[in-house]
């Protein structure tokens, strides 16, 4: 309690005045000789105790009146005394930002721990006996109202919330939940405070965050809304923000590039040691000095020997924010794709055709990632396709309707198809096939010889998976400066060909005239289709410095068409872990990154496409490498064992711990929302929550009450005693 006029307190000894008057009165007696003393003595004996109590009560009332009058004149104010004097019920809704960044250890305590401490303190200030009510809403993996009602009960639940989740918290959802909670707390609570305990991360707290509406809603509900920054002042952090694999599907013996991005989110230069692990075995390590707010790319070539799904993981030494010091990716290392080339070799050795070119480029030996087989087009049927992963139609002439249906079915169920056009490809003959493949609006142009109109390839979309090799600008001349002897430009009707994607076009020699699309791809069901308008005739290969000449295009094209795994292998934290298999799985086990076995999780569901969906987790809670093992039951009764790692990664936005500036928050928050900072001691929070209350008026009312009580009581006594 504080006093605005403390000098008045020197008058406190005046409280003795009523006592002194009382004692003085007891000393002054008028002497009377009286006759009926016996009655007097009896009367005194009867009334002594009661009179003493009445006198004492009167004395207390008078003394308190003087005491409170002096205190009132000293103009006190307090935050605590109103509780003693009684007040209306309070409601407290606490929103806990449980995103990954809240785990940042600042001053020896995480922002989340600090938020819990503040929340606990707030709850302790409430009093269930005063009908106070509280609720805690946690914005972590999901928006969860963890407890509501009795403040003590809520606090007990709060003590069990250990740390934040490795995700971005849905604070907007939490604010909407708070508005609903305010309704639930109901009319019993006269004043409801909503406090958001957060680290005010700038990535989240910005104008695009959608905060305006929910905050306005809470203000409209009459709540006292406060945002409290629980983050530390120093927010240094280094994180692994990405592992980009040059291909997610590798053939055993081949290699891929792992492009690892490290980033210093702090302002000071920091040295880190990064380690890359393949299935828990370190395969590379490097030290880096990261400048303030600078990213560094670390490129590592990975060449797994064993086939199967392999887990790559990058680790840094732990810093203040642990969750983002490691990141995982899955590399699917296969034994090679089975490629079926449908077509026939040229009758003239000196005039190889498309089939010859494909065969020559793909037949590279036992360890080659692609293992081609050949089949004349008329013999192509369902059984032949069932043994293949990829089908290359090498300059097909006529394609029967039955073959077209088989091909469409093959692609629909995940097979890849490359339609390599050549001079023999009939315009009319492939129309039915294109219709079966849902490529409406795509027509094949007439063959054009280089002598007539020389053309080169031009890149339309460098992000096309088939152009992965040529995404590096150094190699693009190898693709775009090669003249093509014969080509079949593709014509697209823009009104009909909406599902088709163009990666390459033909450009005339002066590079100004568009001579039609050269590479078009699209999806059909689970599979991918590409039409390459200039097939790799041997005459294409004029680049001595590159083995195979244009082979990288074909290679990457085939890999981009290759069947994808039945499920994604990388998940963000919080996503549903749900996988699809061609055959029903059994004896499924899932281990978390710590190796802990999670039992009784899976649920199976049969899908319309004949596959089986395995639902493992509604929300995967931790980042790292999760390991799934199961057995797939084949129709013939055989079983295939499957060991599949799954990479669970955190959102990179959580690593940037910078706090939003209050002035930027003011741009989109209602003016009445208070923004506080726990680092300025929690006193500020308490001050805004329970402002010091001027008690002068209250005390004067009490003085009046005491005086009225004293007068009434004295009047009552007089009346009774003067009967």
């Amino acid at each position, binding site marked *: 309690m504080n006093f605005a006029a403390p000098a008045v307190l020197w008058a406190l000894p005046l409280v003795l005045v009523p006592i002194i008057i009382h004692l003085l009165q007891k000393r002054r007696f008028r002497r009377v000789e009286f006759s009926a003393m016996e009655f007097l003595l009896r009367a005194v004996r009867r*009334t002594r105790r009661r009179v003493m109590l009445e006198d004492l009560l009167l004395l207390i009332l008078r003394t308190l009146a003087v005491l409170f009058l002096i205190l009132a004149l000293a103009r006190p104010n307090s935050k605590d005394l109103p509780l003693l004097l009684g007040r209306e019920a309070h409601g407290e809704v606490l929103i806990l930002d449980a995103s990954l960044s809240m785990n940042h250890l600042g001053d020896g305590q995480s922002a989340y721990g600090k938020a819990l401490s503040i929340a606990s303190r707030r709850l302790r200030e409430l009093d269930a006996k005063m009908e106070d009510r509280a609720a805690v809403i946690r914005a972590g993996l999901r928006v969860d109202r963890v407890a509501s009602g009795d403040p003590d009960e809520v606090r007990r639940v709060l003590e069990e919330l250990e740390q934040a989740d490795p995700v971005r918290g849905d604070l907007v959802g939490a604010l909407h939940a708070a508005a609903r909670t305010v309704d639930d707390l109901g009319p019993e609570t006269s004043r409801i405070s909503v406090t958001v305990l957060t680290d005010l991360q700038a990535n989240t707290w910005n104008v695009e965050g959608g905060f305006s509406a929910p905050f306005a809603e809470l203000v409209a509900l009459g709540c006292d809304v406060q945002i409290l920054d629980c983050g530390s002042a120093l927010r240094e952090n280094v994180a692994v923000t990405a592992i980009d694999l040059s291909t997610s599907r590798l053939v055993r013996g081949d290699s891929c590039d792992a492009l690892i991005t490290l980033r210093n989110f702090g302002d000071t230069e920091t040295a880190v040691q990064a380690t890359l692990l393949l299935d828990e075995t370190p395969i590379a390590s490097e030290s880096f000095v990261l400048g303030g707010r600078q990213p560094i790319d670390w490129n590592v070539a990975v060449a797994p020997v064993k086939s199967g799904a392999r887990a790559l993981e990058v680790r840094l030494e732990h810093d203040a924010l642990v969750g983002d010091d490691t990141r995982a990716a899955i590399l699917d290392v296969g034994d090679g794709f089975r490629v079926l080339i449908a077509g026939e070799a040229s009758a003239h050795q000196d005039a190889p055709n498309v089939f010859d070119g494909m065969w020559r480029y793909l037949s590279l030996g036992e360890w080659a990632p692609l293992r081609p087989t050949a089949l004349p087009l008329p013999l192509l049927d369902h059984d032949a396709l069932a043994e293949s992963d990829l089908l290359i139609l090498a300059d097909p002439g006529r394609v029967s309707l039955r073959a077209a249906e088989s091909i469409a079915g093959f692609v629909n169920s995940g097979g890849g198809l490359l339609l390599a056009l050549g001079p023999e490809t009939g315009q009319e003959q492939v129309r039915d096939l294109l219709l079966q493949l849902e490529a409406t609006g795509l027509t094949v142009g007439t063959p054009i010889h280089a002598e007539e109109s020389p053309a080169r390839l031009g890149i339309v979309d460098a992000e096309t998976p088939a152009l992965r090799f040529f995404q590096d600008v150094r190699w693009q001349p190898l693709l775009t400066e090669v003249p093509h002897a014969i080509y079949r430009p593709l014509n697209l009707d823009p009104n009909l060909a909406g599902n088709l994607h163009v990666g390459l076009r033909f450009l005339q020699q002066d590079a100004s005239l568009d001579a039609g699309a050269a590479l078009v791809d699209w999806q059909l069901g689970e599979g991918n289709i590409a039409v390459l308008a200039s097939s790799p005739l041997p005459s294409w290969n004029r680049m001595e410095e590159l083995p195979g000449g244009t082979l990288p295009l074909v290679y990457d094209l085939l890999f981009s068409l290759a069947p994808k795994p039945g499920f994604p292998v990388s998940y963000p934290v919080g996503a549903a872990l749900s996988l699809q298999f061609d055959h029903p799985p059994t004896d499924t086990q899932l281990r978390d990154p710590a190796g802990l076995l999670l039992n009784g999780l899976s649920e199976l569901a049969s899908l319309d496409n004949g596959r089986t969906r395995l639902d493992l987790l509604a929300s995967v809670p931790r980042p790292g490498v999760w390991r799934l093992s199961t057995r797939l039951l084949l129709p013939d009764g055989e079983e295939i064992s499957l060991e599949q790692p799954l990479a669970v990664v955190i959102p990179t936005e959580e690593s940037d711990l910078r706090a939003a500036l209050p002035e930027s928050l003011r741009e989109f928050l209602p003016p009445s929302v208070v923004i506080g900072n726990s680092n300025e001691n929690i006193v500020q929070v308490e001050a805004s929550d329970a402002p010091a209350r001027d008690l002068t008026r209250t005390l004067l009312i009490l003085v009046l009450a005491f005086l009225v009580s004293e007068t009434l009581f004295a009047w009552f006594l007089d009346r009774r005693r003067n009967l």
Partner: protein
Amino acid sequence: MQQASDPRLRARLQRLELRARTAVEGLRGGRHPSPIKGSSTTFAQHREYVAGDDLRRLDWRLMARSDRNIIREYEEETDLRLWIVLDASASMQFTSGEWNKFDYGSWLAAALARVACDQNDQFGLMLTHGEKLERTLPARGGEGHWKSFCHMLAESEPEGAGDPAIGLQLAAGQMDRRGLVVWISDFLGAPEEAATGVNLLRRKGHDVIALRTLDHAEVDFPFLRNTRFEGLEGSAVLRADPNTIRAAYLEEFEKHGAELRRGLRSAGCAFRRMPIDEPLEVGLVEFLAQRNAQKLGGRR
């Protein structure tokens, strides 16, 4: 004891006689036109009947002749002996006004004796000081005796402590002939003792009238400020805020009065409370009514 030459005594005596005579005269001139004509066989006079006269005194013969209602009156002849027992204990000196209870009791005694004297009755006086019977004036008649009666009253002072009923019981032992006993006291003693004293007198054939003299301060307890009460009898001292004990005191006082009244009346005693600021006639009327009743009862 004060000497007769003491000016204060003389003044007091004069005041006593004056008050007694005034009271008796006032009584004659007011309520009863002819209340004290006797009923002996010596004829005194005839007069007109007035309401309240005893119908047995009508002169039937004269009524038949004159056609008027005539009453026959006789000279009073009486053997009534009046004993006045006056409580002269210290508590009787309490007063909140000009005179105290003893003064009032003295005046009342003198007035009663005056009436008795005028009726040719014998009257005697016994003064009790607390539990002691200090002075006694034998019962006789005549003007001179009344003077002696008044003198004895005037020279007495209230003193002594104790239950006045004990004094009454002592006085009862000295009353040889049956008569009418008027006991004047504040009765600040045990009601049972008072009833015992009256019963003793009643057994000896006396009629008893108890007249209780009270100061209004005893009845109303009008004290307001803190007061040190000092007992007139004994050494009891009490400091108190009168306001805090008033109700309880009055309750005790009334309770005692009720017990006293009940005890005395059950003993066959006429009892009357006489605040000392009331006229003396009230006490005289009570005495006369009782005297007449006794005389009638005696003739029967």
